[in-house]
Each structure stands twice: as structure tokens, then as C-alpha cells.
């Protein structure tokens, strides 16, 4: 079980003196044996929250408890060794490190090529074609994304965090990805899953849904309760005029 207690995270503003609060006083519990999906508008602070959970960023204030232990000050490595896994929204590229190396490091064992291949097959990649490829810019965005997910599957974390796993994955494979998560959900005993997503299909396999907006926890409850309210709203950012780009601003 992961507990976030009054987590806030600030960064220095561009001018240097002012501080911007990206995550504001978020308290949230990820219970055991549940699949939680976090959603919300772009720039709302979802990835930042995931990075705080993994320890890539440290909160400005607040506390993180994992299975009752205060892990707020623990490093990424220590959290990984306690069972937290994280699939990046934007997978990292390497020079020279091969897909097999990454999967082997994820399992922390002397893995055979055959066993490594099963994780690639699980994310819909023809293992034979990819196992010895470099995890570099020569892979397509979608390929990198699937390999990223495969490394987390291989790690078999007790708490698996996926940041927009569907991004860049084609429609045909999306079904396959849903099956991966359904499979994980079916075998969730002793673990929990946190997925950041904008996809209705992924929201619909959640036990609980969390909405993060403007760095704050806007909604949290069982899927049955939250999902209908999300599908009902016309716009995720109601106080902003949609469809116009004012001079001096750029669209994302």
C-alpha cells in the first residue's frame, strides 16, 4: 500500500525568485490489489506525481509511506528494490545497450534469451526481431514505448506505475495492451497498479479513478462513480476558451 500525505512540489520559476507549485497538497492512498487510473488535463501534474512516487523528484513538503515505511527520503534505487516499478511517459534512449540487456537488468537475474523474449511477446513485439536491437533512436516511438512497458513487466514490481502507456501505440496493438493490463489485474494478488491515462478503455478497467487538475486532487472514487462524470463533461479545461490561440501563446 502506498500513501501520499499532503504532498506538495514546487520548482523555481523562470525568473528565479518566484516558486511555482506543480503539485499541491495531494493526499492519496493506492490500496493493495487495486488498479488505479489517474487522469486529468495536460499539464495537470500527473507525471510529476508519478516521478515523486518513484523518487525521481523529492516533494517540497509531505510524506510518502510504502507498506507503512516512510520512503520520502529514499533514493530511486531503494524504492525500486522495495518493489516500485515505473514506465516512463517518454522512454529513455541509450547507445549500445540492447533490449535484452535492459530486460535482463530489470529481472535482476541471469536471464536466458528465451525467457526475455516472453516479455516482448507480451507487449506484441516479435521477440526475435527486437531482442538484440539497441534501445536507441533507431527504434520507433511506439516500439520504444512497448519495450519500456516490457521492462516493467519483467521487473514484476509490487507497485507498477505506468505513465501514459498507450501513447504512441497503434490502434491494433492498443487492444493487446488492454489485454496486458487485464492480465495484470487478474493476477494482482499481493501487488497494485497505477496507470496514468487519457483513454476511456483504460479508465474502464480501473477499480478507482483519480482526477488531477492544476496540481490538485480534483476527484477520487470508484470507477462506477467517477467515469460517468468524466464522460459527461464537454471540456477538461472549462475555464479556458478552447479553439483559439491568443497572440503570444503557442498551442501544444
Amino acid at each position, binding site marked *: 500500500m502506498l500513501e501520499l500525505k499532503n504532498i506538495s512540489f514546487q520548482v523555481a520559476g523562470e525568473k528565479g525568485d518566484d516558486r511555482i507549485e506543480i503539485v499541491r497538497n495531494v493526499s492519496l492512498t493506492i490500496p493493495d490489489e487495486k488498479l488505479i487510473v489517474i487522469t486529468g488535463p495536460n499539464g495537470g501534474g500527473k507525471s510529476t506525481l508519478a516521478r515523486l512516487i*518513484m523518487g*525521481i523528484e523529492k516533494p517540497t513538503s509531505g510524506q510518502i509511506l510504502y507498506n507503512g515505511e516512510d520512503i520520502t527520503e529514499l*533514493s*530511486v*534505487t531503494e524504492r*525500486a*528494490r522495495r518493489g*516500485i*516499478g*515505473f514506465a*516512463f511517459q517518454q*522512454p*529513455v534512449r*541509450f*547507445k*549500445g*545497450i*540492447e533490449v535484452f*540487456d*535492459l530486460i535482463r*537488468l*530489470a529481472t*535482476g537475474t541471469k536471464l536466458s534469451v528465451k525467457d526475455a523474449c516472453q516479455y516482448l511477446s507480451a507487449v506484441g513485439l516479435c521477440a526475435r526481431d527486437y531482442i538484440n536491437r539497441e534501445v536507441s533512436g533507431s527504434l520507433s516511438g511506439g516500439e520504444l514505448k512497448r519495450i519500456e512497458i516490457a*521492462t516493467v513487466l519483467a*521487473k514484476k514490481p509490487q507497485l507498477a506505475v505506468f505513465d501514459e502507456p498507450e501513447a504512441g501505440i497503434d490502434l491494433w496493438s492498443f487492444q493487446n495492451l488492454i489485454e496486458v493490463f487485464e492480465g495484470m489485474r487478474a493476477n494482482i494478488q499481493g501487488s497494485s497498479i497505477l496507470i496514468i491515462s487519457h483513454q476511456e478503455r483504460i479508465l474502464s478497467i480501473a477499480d478507482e479513478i483519480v482526477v488531477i487538475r492544476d496540481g490538485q486532487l480534483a476527484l477520487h472514487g470508484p470507477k462506477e462513480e467517477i467515469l460517468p462524470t468524466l464522460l459527461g463533461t464537454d471540456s477538461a479545461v472549462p475555464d479556458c476558451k478552447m479553439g483559439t490561440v491568443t497572440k503570444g501563446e503557442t498551442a501544444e
Partner: protein
Amino acid sequence: MKPLDEIQKRLLSEVAGLHAIPEGAYNIRANGTSAGRASTANIEIIPREDGKGLTIKVKPGTKNESIHIPVVMTQSGLKEVVYNDFYIGEGADVFIVAGCGIDNCGPQDSEHDGIHRFYVGKGAKVRYVEKHYGSGDGRGKRILNPGTEVYQEEDSSVEMEMVQIKGVDDTNRVTKAELAKGARLVVRERLMTHGDQKALSTYTVEMNGEGSSSDVVSRSVARDNSYQKFDAVLTGNAPCTGHTECDAIIMDNGRILAVPGLEANDVDAALVHEAAIGKIAGDQIIKLMTLGLTESEAEEQIVNGFLK
């Protein structure tokens, strides 16, 4: 010819991957003398009269044969300059494994300067692998200064892989090449320096014939207080294509100077250089840490992969 001792055998496997007497033509040089030599029907290895090197002749049309000429040194204070000349006949296709391993446990510097000259005939193909390795904890330095000259005739192809990953204190590598029409040169250099080591690597490649091409790529890592200089000048004197790249990681107080140079003397010479030096990307370390590696284990994996 003296049999090799255990340290010499270990060096031999490091630099030439040899665990037994190699097949094909070979010469093993240990502490300044030959510890074994064989020629084949197509490849003749002739020792120079002064004892300082070899003349190696490959008959035209020789196919898929290998030549191993590793050097091992275990005697502290030994300094040698060795000249090896390769004459590769027209249309031949050979694989050459050179390399030098020095184990220095003594107080004096050990130095091997190997000058290799390649005369590559029309349409011939050469694959050349050269590994350098140093070990031993003596105060004496392990010094290697390889000089390589490559003269390529029409449509010949030379691929060179130069690796120096460990234990060599001081290196000054000078490589020169001249390419005739249609000749192709590919160089892959991998280098790691640590401690107070110093490594200089200079390439001058002249593309003199139409349609010649060269591709010189160095991947290197400088750790601790080590220093590297990569200096590659490609000259295009005819319609040709040339590419040189230095991709380097610096760690600790390591320093690297990359001086890529291009000279085009023909309007149809297309020359490109790329150079990138920087520390290991932070997100690469973090990714491996999320898999449970410590920061230093992550760095080790990234460096190993980079130099693979």
C-alpha cells in the same frame, strides 16, 4: 622459441581472443622475440633481418584467411619499436588480428611502438582488429604508440576496429590513409581512459580517387583524471564522401578535446563531421535506477554498452 607463461597466455586471450595456437598464418611476439610463427600456402610471414618486425605477403586472390600477429610483454622496462608491413594482393580477402598486451609489475616503463603499413591491392578486402590492454600494478607505465599507414588501391576496402579499454597509461596513435578511386575505409575506434592516463588519436585520411569514401567513428569514455584528444582530418581531393564522428562521455575529472577537421579540394567532395562530448545523460541513469541498480552500477552498464 620459449613457451608462453600464464600471464602471457592471459594477455593473449585479452588482445587476440586466443586460447590456443590460431589457425592460419600467425606470429606471436613475446618480450621482444617470436614465440611461434606459421605461414600458409597463400600467406607468407617473413621476419625482418634486424628482428624488429615482419613482412607479411598475401597472394592475390587469397580468400577468407586469417592472420594473427599479437604482441605480449611482461618484462618491466622493455622498450621496442616494431615495423610490420602488409602486402595484400589484388582481390584478396583477409582478416587480420593484431593487438598488444602489456603486463608491467615493475618500476620501469614498458613501451611498444608498433608501426603497421598496409599496401592494399586492387579490389582487396581487409578486416583488421587491434586491441590494446594493460595490466599489472607496478609503478612503471604501460605505453603503446601505434602508427598505422594504409595505402589503398582502386576499389579496395579496409575496415579497422581499434579497441583500448583498459590499463594502458599512455598512447599516441597516429593513423594515415590514402585512398585511390572507389576505395573505402571504415574505422571504428573504442577507447576508455582512467586514472591519469593520456590518449591521443590522430587520423589523416586523403581521398584522392573518384568515388572513394571514408567513415571514421570514435566512441570514447574518459574517467578519473584522464585526458584524450581526438583529431581527425579528412581531405577530399576528388569526388568522394567522408564522415567522421567523435562521440564521447566524460566522467569525474576526465577531459576530452575533439578536433575534427575537413578539407575539401574538389567541388564534389561531400564531407561531414560530428562531435558530441558530455556526461552520461541523467535520465539514462535514472531509468536503470528504477530497475534497481545503484547509480554507479547504472553508470557501469551505460559505459559498457556504449563501448560494446
